């Protein structure tokens, strides 16, 4: 894990300016730290040793005050832009990850990476904020202030510089040693902690069930016992985890103490002036300060670094090449799957499927849940390439074209797809259902799908504005909206994935009528169906059979 991954600057453009600013401010800070120490030592030594008056020291003290104000301003400027840069960089990465993940397609998202990307895009990347705001500036300071102060100390007193340079490498060495030593133990501890924590949550989640059986009182003792066990496990882990912090603090404070003692003894011998001694004394803690902060912020930054690496992994996953063959008119073309198999965690779903969807026909896909019906739809739509077999488009008198070679921009506009969970864009109902459709067309389609009753119950009728995902409508109502949209869409190929789900008997009649209307309009319909009434309307029925993982 690199402390600063160059990919971060590549994918999050806001981070570049911020890093430049941070480096600039880091250099200024180094200069100010040195100036403050030298001015303070000068004024103090002149007053304490030479008995100088306030009037004679006024310029030095004036400069000291100016340096103090400048240091405060630098910190304020850093803080002012750190949060902004963090938010912008997180936003850029988030948009990039979402855009790229969607381009990678639903299958990529379904292969176990989906939940990870969702977590990353919703909460995970927010962990980059402490990285940008706290960790990165200290990292830069440890690269500017630490060397600058060491050089100045070297110029002032080589013995002190030797002590500092001698102890400095001990810090990373001890940190690594302790890290190695504690690694296994912390992981075991973390595992025990999360297990105990989830047991308490399990009891809380089961509380309604315990109440239903009148057995809710007993587990309170168990919640306490689990809490105590949790505490003991956590403390066990922390006792080890805090060791690295202690070693860091011991090394830094002890070496400052050593520097102080060595300066004191040499002052007695007259080998050093008071001003030099004081300057080195003030500078010595500043050498270690950024390093201590990097150590302190390290844990806060690891989540952010991990999130960034996960984001890079998504962004660097290659997007499959998009087809370029223009799609022929689907009113004359037949979709054909031959021996199609898609491998998934559930086995081969579907397994060796043959399917022909001829123009103007109604085809039903049936089969147990998990057999790969929706996967088959995704293959047909070119969202997914089969692991075995071919998926192609056949036009009479022309060579078949593989679906994956089709240009999606010419294929997808010819498709109206109603997925299991209808996707409704926010906006007015009219714009959603049939942009450009006449009132009569809307009314007759809505009468067929039963949407008219829904519209009648809405405050602004067709002009009602729905929220994201059709917020404000029930699942069944959303289903009717989506059905009406599919009915009104001019696309010649209609895919209805379980259109009767969430609908009662009356809703089922509506779907049957809608399919009949689509058939009458010579549209090609592919139904994923469970209910026999729906299956009975199809011209052909294809059963999707999986080969389950265990049976292989």
């Amino acid at each position: 894990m690199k402390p600063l991954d160059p990919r971060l600057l590549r994918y999050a453009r806001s981070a570049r300016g911020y890093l430049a600013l941070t480096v600039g401010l880091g250099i200024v800070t180094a200069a100010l730290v040195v100036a403050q120490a030298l001015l303070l030592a000068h004024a103090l030594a002149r007053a304490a040793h030479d008995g100088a008056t306030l009037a004679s020291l006024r310029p030095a003290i004036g400069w000291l005050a100016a340096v103090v104000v400048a240091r405060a301003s630098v910190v304020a400027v850093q803080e002012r832009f750190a949060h902004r840069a963090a938010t912008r960089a997180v936003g850029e990465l988030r948009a990039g990850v979402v855009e790229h993940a969607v381009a990678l397609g639903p299958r990529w998202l379904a292969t176990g990476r989906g939940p990870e990307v969702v977590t990353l895009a919703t909460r995970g990347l927010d962990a980059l904020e402490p990285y940008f705001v706290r960790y990165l500036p200290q990292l830069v300071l440890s690269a500017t202030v630490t060397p600058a102060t060491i050089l100045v100390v070297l110029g002032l007193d080589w013995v002190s510089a030797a002590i500092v340079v001698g102890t400095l490498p001990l810090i990373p060495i001890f940190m690594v040693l302790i890290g190695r030593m504690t690694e296994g133990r912390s992981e075991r501890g973390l595992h025990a902690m999360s297990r105990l924590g989830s047991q308490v949550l399990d009891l809380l989640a089961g509380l309604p069930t315990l109440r239903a059986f009148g057995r809710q009182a007993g587990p309170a003792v168990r919640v306490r016992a689990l809490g105590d066990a949790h505490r003991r496990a956590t403390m066990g882990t922390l006792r080890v985890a805090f060791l690295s912090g202690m070693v860091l603090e011991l090394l830094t404070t002890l070496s400052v103490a050593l520097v102080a003692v060595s300066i004191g003894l040499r002052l007695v011998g007259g080998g050093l002036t008071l001003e030099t001694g004081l300057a080195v004394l003030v500078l010595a803690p500043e050498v270690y300060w950024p390093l201590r902060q990097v150590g302190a912020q390290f844990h806060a930054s690891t989540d952010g670094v991990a999130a960034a690496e996960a984001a890079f992994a998504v962004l660097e996953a290659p997007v499959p090449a998009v087809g370029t063959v223009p799609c022929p008119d689907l009113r004359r073309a037949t979709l054909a799957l031959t021996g199609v198999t898609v491998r998934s965690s559930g086995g081969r779903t579907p397994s060796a499927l043959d399917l022909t969807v001829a123009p103007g026909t109604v085809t039903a896909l049936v089969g147990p849940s998990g057999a790969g019906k929706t996967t088959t739809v995704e293959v047909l739509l070119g969202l997914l390439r089969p692991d075995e077999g071919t998926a192609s488009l056949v036009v009479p008198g022309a060579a078949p074209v593989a679906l994956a070679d089709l240009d999606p921009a010419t294929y997808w506009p010819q498709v109206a797809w109603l997925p299991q969970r209808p996707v409704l864009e926010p906006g007015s109902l009219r714009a959603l259902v049939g942009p450009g459709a006449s009132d009569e067309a809307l009314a007759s389609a809505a009468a067929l799908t039963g949407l008219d009753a829904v519209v009648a119950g809405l405050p602004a009728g067709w002009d009602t504005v729905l929220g994201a995902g059709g917020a404000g409508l029930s699942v069944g109502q959303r289903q009717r909206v989506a059905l009406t949209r599919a009915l009104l869409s001019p696309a010649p190929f209609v895919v209805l994935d379980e259109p009767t789900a969430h609908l009662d008997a009356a809703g089922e009649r509506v779907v049957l009528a809608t399919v009949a209307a689509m058939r009458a309009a010579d549209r090609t319909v592919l139904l994923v169906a469970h209910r026999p009434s729906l299956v009975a309307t199809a011209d052909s029925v294809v059963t999707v059979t999986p080969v389950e993982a265990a049976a292989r």
Partner: protein
Amino acid sequence: MTRERGTLRRAVRLLGLDTRRVLLAVLTGTLALGCAVALAAVSAWLIARASQMPPVLQLSIATVAVRTFGIGRGVLRYVDRLVSHDVALRGMTNLRTTLYTRLAAGRSEATLRVRRGDLLARVGADVDAVGDVVVRGLLPAGVALLLGIGTVTAMAFFWPPAAVALAACLVLAGVVAPLLAARGARASERRAVTARADASAAALAALDDAGPLLVAGGVGRRVAELRDADRRLARAVDAGAASSAVAAGLGILATGLAATAALVTGIPAVVSGALAPVELAVIVLTPLAAFEATGMLPAAAVSVQRSRAAAARILALLDSAAPDAEPRGTAEPPAATSRPPVQFPELSVAIHDPNVRKVNVGEGAGIVARGLDCGWPGLPPVLRGVDLDVAPGRSVAIVGPSGAGKTTLLLTLAGLLPRAGGTLLVDGDEPTVLDPAERAARVVVTAEDAHVFGTTVLENLRVARGDVTPDEATAALTAAGLQDWLAALPDGLDTMLGPDARTVSGGERRRLLLARALLAPAPLLLVDEPAEHLDPATADALVTSLLAGPRTPAGGPRGVVVVTHRLTPLAAADEVLWVESGRIAARGTHAELSAGLLDYGEAVRRERVTADHRERA
């Protein structure tokens, strides 16, 4: 703001912190940072004194002290971190236990809501956040206060004016800067909440529906929404950035000012002889180390600010479960409630259908509902005017479209939701006023979303009754149609199930819940959709056996109410209730409804077609 402060104080009080341990933590923290201050002071004295070239022996105490303080700081800080985390973890255990106990004893609909909402997922994190207030807020503030007082007092012994300046600077860094930081965080957070939620929602929408969006051409719009939300988030963060920036600068400014002020006030004193030159070095250099404690406070204020929302959620959860709104049987006898017991003319005779089997199990036995309205508190009733009699030995099925209120009815009958109107008696008492254990001894409900605990199969079944033997458990699993599943389990009844039973399928889960319900000693059993996720043949067999004369584990007659979507097996029910449009639309035997009710008949026929279709296939 005052209310918000109260929120945090109430939540911290719930941690039940041990005062002695808190004091110990503050003390070790103060000593650890005090070592750093002392190290600076002694080093300054050592160097200033050494420059006067005294005999080396005079410096030996100082050189030892410097090293001691150097070691002491590291060791004490380590102890301090352990003690303060221990305090916080003990508090979090107390809070979790309190949360559990109060929810367990409180109003049941509150816990039902927790299960349904996303509250539960947050409870764990919220408890951690309140515990965080102790480690990051309370203890550092205590340490900063004690250390500040100590340092200023020590400084006053050398030179009071410098002490006054130091005190003022400590207030600047330890009070003003944290207040500003908290204000900045609050300003950002208030504006950022919506933008953050919008960004999450847009990202989620794009990722969840990637395929449909690609095909329908809606990806660009979603990504634009996401970018827009992120831009608003950036603006919200900017809104608080000025305060945060000033807060961060103040800390550095205060340190420098304290040292400069000591110089300005100290130099004339050295000239006039009121202050020794060596002491000047001490009062000028000590402030440089005195601001470590206050330096942590702005971040502490921000994290406390963020914990406030978590504290508010926990308190809201506890308040919603507060039992004051619900009379409890243990507190007052049922006779003392405001609702007088209602006399029913025909206690165990069904009202609409005189042909039902009449089971004589004694007067008042079973569920008796008259004009019962059901709904969630605070919402209009979803189902009104339910008349129902379920005596032990009688079986009733409830069917109807989804969303008609069937589950709400079951929860109300079981006394887990207060009734919205009408009367309801279980064995002669109102179920909601009964002691929970007594209520569960009479009637038990298994909800659709009942919990499968992360423990063994046997322990999961023992939720119904603590003394279930392995043989009884096997029998119940067999009765629920799980004998093959049980046989395939690696450790049989001792197999561990994942939290919320991720390792069992939907159908297995339902049957496991049914087996658990069958083991409950209560003579009245209410079951919600036991056959969901099962193939029709298995489902029908299961519901039929459940409706046809079940017995309690002790062998007595049992009354059952089953909510189901399969109609074919309902021939075994004594009565079928068709729920639609917020009322009992029709009731009777399966045969009567099949013949008399159009929708019911059609639905039964459709199920039959499915069965035929399957046979053909």
